[in-house]
């Protein structure tokens, strides 16, 4: 257990969570706070709420696909779950299905997964891990949260008004012509446009913070890898997001004023839209995964008590991925482009696989000769390695031209990006939440419940999405409300998987609520971490640290340093002093 041994004096300064005013005053205090921790927590609850909304839509989509829609010779419709009671055609029901999957995609991408790790955990831990008091521009930070909320409200209003059926990609000319008599499509596009600003401002803030606010003694290569990941992410956010902003504005112009940019009926080019869209949306794939990779580097090293293997390789591969991510967007369009462009983009795509593969080897090598604790964060990190490997490797047949022409826009793609986005980012996010939960809220969660939840999520996830690889190779296209009989068995299994997944998430939800209400108080450094956030209290005091932090050891020197607030009996050092 941890002891009271600490070099700091204990001031009677309360934690950032201690309410200082009455109920209304506390709400006002949170709404106007410039404290990065409070803003991080507000982001956390906001993105988790959006995850809930998007998740409900996903469950509805899976439920509809339990049975294929059939029209008998006499016009009777079977297997349609959503739709009017006595529909005259299956179109009305399919239209609802199309709105559901668009809702799922748009919410999960724009409102959940892009802000998830950077804005929630990044906001909370980037300054703490740098030993700073706050981010460089605290007011801008609060402003970006409000922009996020406004953008999300636009999206939610669009859904309340009936939702959109464009797919999250808003491909033209479908998106410029559908629901022509209504402005909810504009509202959803505007939501994505506004959310982009939140993303840019957060990225800008983090870049400046990383450059200027590192604690004395912390050089670039003394930074935790989570910071490197967030830093690389921020660069992509700042550089790529303006492109989607312009693209979405052009889309709005075309819908409102019939300016012919993308719609061939007006003299435009629909493939131009796809180029613009993926020029942003491909780099953004790495905005989604890089922070998750950062979390995994932290969890693996702390819970295996090993120096991360190949620190520089991981740090540089983050930057390498960020750089290469800008020149591979064309691989979303092999079925839409000419031979030369397709060949070049295919070659570049394999280039981006290399730094990712390097990271994977480094993480596994980190476990070698460690002292590996099996707890919820570690189970999630191991799940990440398992699922993200599958996600990455199934990208190979999608990057190769001959095979992609078969697999493009099939369930194989759906499974592939869920293995990377959900099996990667969401799993890492859940691992990160468990890893840092004691620090954020000052309470421990129930370890057994956490591990049960993780196992359920792992099983449910694989059942849901593994089946979809086979659906895809066998010929099931994505975004289908119905399918031929041959595909039903795999669809049924996939839907069962989604229910197990739901059970896993519910276990976590109750575990978190139980922890907040009745969890045992968390020590400052429950895992024996060496990064700076573990030096302060749990939860941290309002100004983060009692004194200015002086960095005297690396973030992963587990072989030579007794972790702060920790006892050498719990986290013993190896006998021979480290020679490396």
């Amino acid at each position, binding site marked *: 257990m941890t002891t009271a041994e600490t070099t700091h004096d204990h001031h009677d300064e309360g934690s950032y969570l201690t309410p200082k005013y009455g109920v209304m005053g506390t709400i006002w205090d949170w709404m106007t706070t410039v404290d990065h921790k409070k803003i991080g927590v507000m982001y956390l609850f906001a993105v988790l709420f959006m995850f809930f909304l998007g998740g409900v839509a996903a469950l509805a989509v899976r439920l509809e696909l339990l049975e294929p829609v059939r029209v008998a010779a006499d016009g009777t419709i079977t297997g349609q779950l959503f739709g009017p009671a006595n529909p005259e055609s299956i179109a009305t029901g399919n239209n609802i299905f199309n709105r559901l999957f668009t809702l799922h995609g748009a919410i999960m991408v724009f409102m959940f997964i892009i802000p998830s790790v950077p804005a929630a955990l990044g906001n909370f831990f980037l300054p703490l891990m740098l030993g700073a008091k706050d981010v460089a521009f605290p007011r801008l930070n609060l402003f970006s949260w409000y922009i996020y909320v406004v953008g999300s409200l636009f999206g939610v209003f669009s859904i309340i008004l009936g939702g959109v059926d464009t797919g999250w990609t808003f491909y033209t000319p479908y998106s410029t012509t559908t629901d022509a008599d209504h402005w909810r499509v504009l509202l959803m596009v505007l939501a994505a446009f506004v959310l982009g600003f939140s993303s840019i401002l957060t990225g800008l803030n983090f870049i400046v913070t990383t450059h200027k606010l590192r604690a004395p003694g912390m050089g670039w290569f003394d930074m935790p890898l989570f910071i490197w990941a967030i830093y690389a992410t921020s660069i992509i956010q700042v550089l790529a997001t303006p492109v989607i902003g312009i693209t979405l504005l052009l889309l709005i112009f075309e819908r409102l004023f019939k300016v012919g940019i993308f719609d061939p009926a007006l003299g435009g080019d629909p493939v131009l839209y796809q180029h613009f869209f993926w020029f942003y949306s491909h780099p953004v794939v790495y905005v989604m995964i890089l922070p998750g990779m950062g979390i995994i580097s932290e969890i693996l090293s702390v819970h295996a008590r090993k120096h991360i293997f190949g620190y520089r390789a991981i740090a540089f591969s983050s930057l390498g991925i960020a750089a290469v991510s800008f020149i591979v967007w064309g691989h979303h369009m092999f079925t839409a482009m000419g031979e030369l462009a397709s060949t070049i983009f295919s070659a570049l795509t394999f280039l981006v696989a290399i730094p990712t593969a390097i990271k994977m080897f*480094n993480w596994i090598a980190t476990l070698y000769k460690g*002292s590996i604790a099996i707890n919820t964060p570690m189970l999630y990190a191991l799940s990440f390695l398992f699922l993200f490997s599958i996600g990455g490797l199934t990208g190979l047949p999608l990057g190769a031209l001959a095979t992609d022409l078969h697999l493009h826009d099939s369930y194989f793609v759906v499974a592939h990006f869920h293995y990377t986005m959900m099996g990667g980012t969401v799993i890492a996010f859940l691992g990160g939440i468990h890893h840092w939960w004691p620090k954020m809220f000052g309470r421990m969660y129930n370890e057994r419940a956490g591990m049960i939840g993780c196992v359920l999520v792992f099983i449910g996830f694989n059942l849901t999405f593994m089946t979809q690889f086979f659906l895809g190779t066998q010929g099931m296209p994505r975004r289908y409300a119905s399918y031929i009989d041959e595909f039903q068995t795999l669809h049924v299994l996939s839907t069962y998987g989604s229910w197990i997944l739901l059970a896993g998430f519910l276990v976590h939800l109750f575990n978190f609520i139980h922890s907040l209400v009745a969890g045992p108080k968390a020590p400052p450094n429950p895992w024996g971490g060496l990064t700076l956030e573990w030096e302060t209290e749990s939860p941290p005091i309002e100004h983060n640290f009692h004194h200015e932090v002086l960095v005297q050891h690396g973030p992963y020197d587990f072989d030579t340093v007794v972790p702060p607030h920790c006892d050498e009996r719990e986290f013993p050092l190896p006998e021979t002093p480290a020679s490396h």
Partner: protein
Amino acid sequence: MTMPFSLPLTTLANAVPPVRVLPNNADGFQEIFFRTNGQTDSAVWTDGLFMLTFWFSTFFFVLLMGLLVYWCIIYRRRPGVPQKISPSHNTPLEILWTVVPSSGMLVIFFLGFQGYMDKLVPASGALQLEVTGFKWDWKVSYPDGTQTGQTVTLGGRNDIKVHALPEDTEVSLRLLSNDVIHAFWIPDFRMKMDVFPNRYTGYGFRTPVLGPEDDHPEGRYRDHWVFCAEYCGDLHSEMAAVLRVMPRADYEQWLKDQGSSGDPVIDGKRVYSSMCATCHTVNGAKNIGPSWMNLYGSTREFEDGTSQIADDNYIRESILNPNAKIVKGFQPQMTSYQGVINDTDIANVIAYMKSISEHVEQPAEGEGEGEAPASETDAEGEG
């Protein structure tokens, strides 16, 4: 050579024609992934590349996960026992695990490129089919202008349109969309291409050679699904068709059966089945568009409050400029068929609509038409 690696490589080597591609000679993992092997030479080649990539990936996956599980067991935390000291980096090792997978990926890229060019470059003298995608069906025109009127029930779905192809023939598809982007995917041929409203795309393939295993009670043929793979709206998932590969003699006969019957009502019904049936019924039920039953000659009430009797000119306008007048209770969903349908077919459609309207005096032998969708027997039955 070990089994997993010899399998795909020999498949690649054997993919040189003439190899008769059986309906199913897939086994093991290939059968789990694809159910049946690819049905054209280039599809067989693609399967080979996919399986090669699969075994390449499986090797690294099993290696990494094996180490992960093994180390998690032997190095699990024991109270009071510290981790052991080991290097935190190793440059030769890191170079090795960068170079080896990268070289593998280089091979996969080149093979992917090779198979891609093979799929794209059409053979000379191929049978050229014009494929038009529209919401929500495919129109396939043969060189002599023939279009299909035949439908089958397949995979649990009624009214799936059949397009015949001769066996062992180079076929080239020219794809164009009439509205939004679609994609023409033939999973058995492992090939798809987007279908755009503003420019032609296309691809070619050599149809398989049939054998005794393709014999059915109705004759020798092999069916291949076509799905729309680019999201296009309400009935995206219904935008399916079947390519039926048959012996050349059967194919010639089929083409004749699909050709003009000399009776505009029957030809009009065939146009209806091939282009209109997705959105318009002929039994009075409302679909995306109004039913054609008793439409001709009736008074049409429009969204803007005006009305008009449905005569020849109204029908023509509704086909070529469908959004000029929107019938009450419907959405402006239909796109123009200008350039998709010719004048003869418009006249045939009008004749067919007349034949199913009570507002038109019916000739004695025309009674009772219009309930059943057209089928291949119609051509002989009514000629």
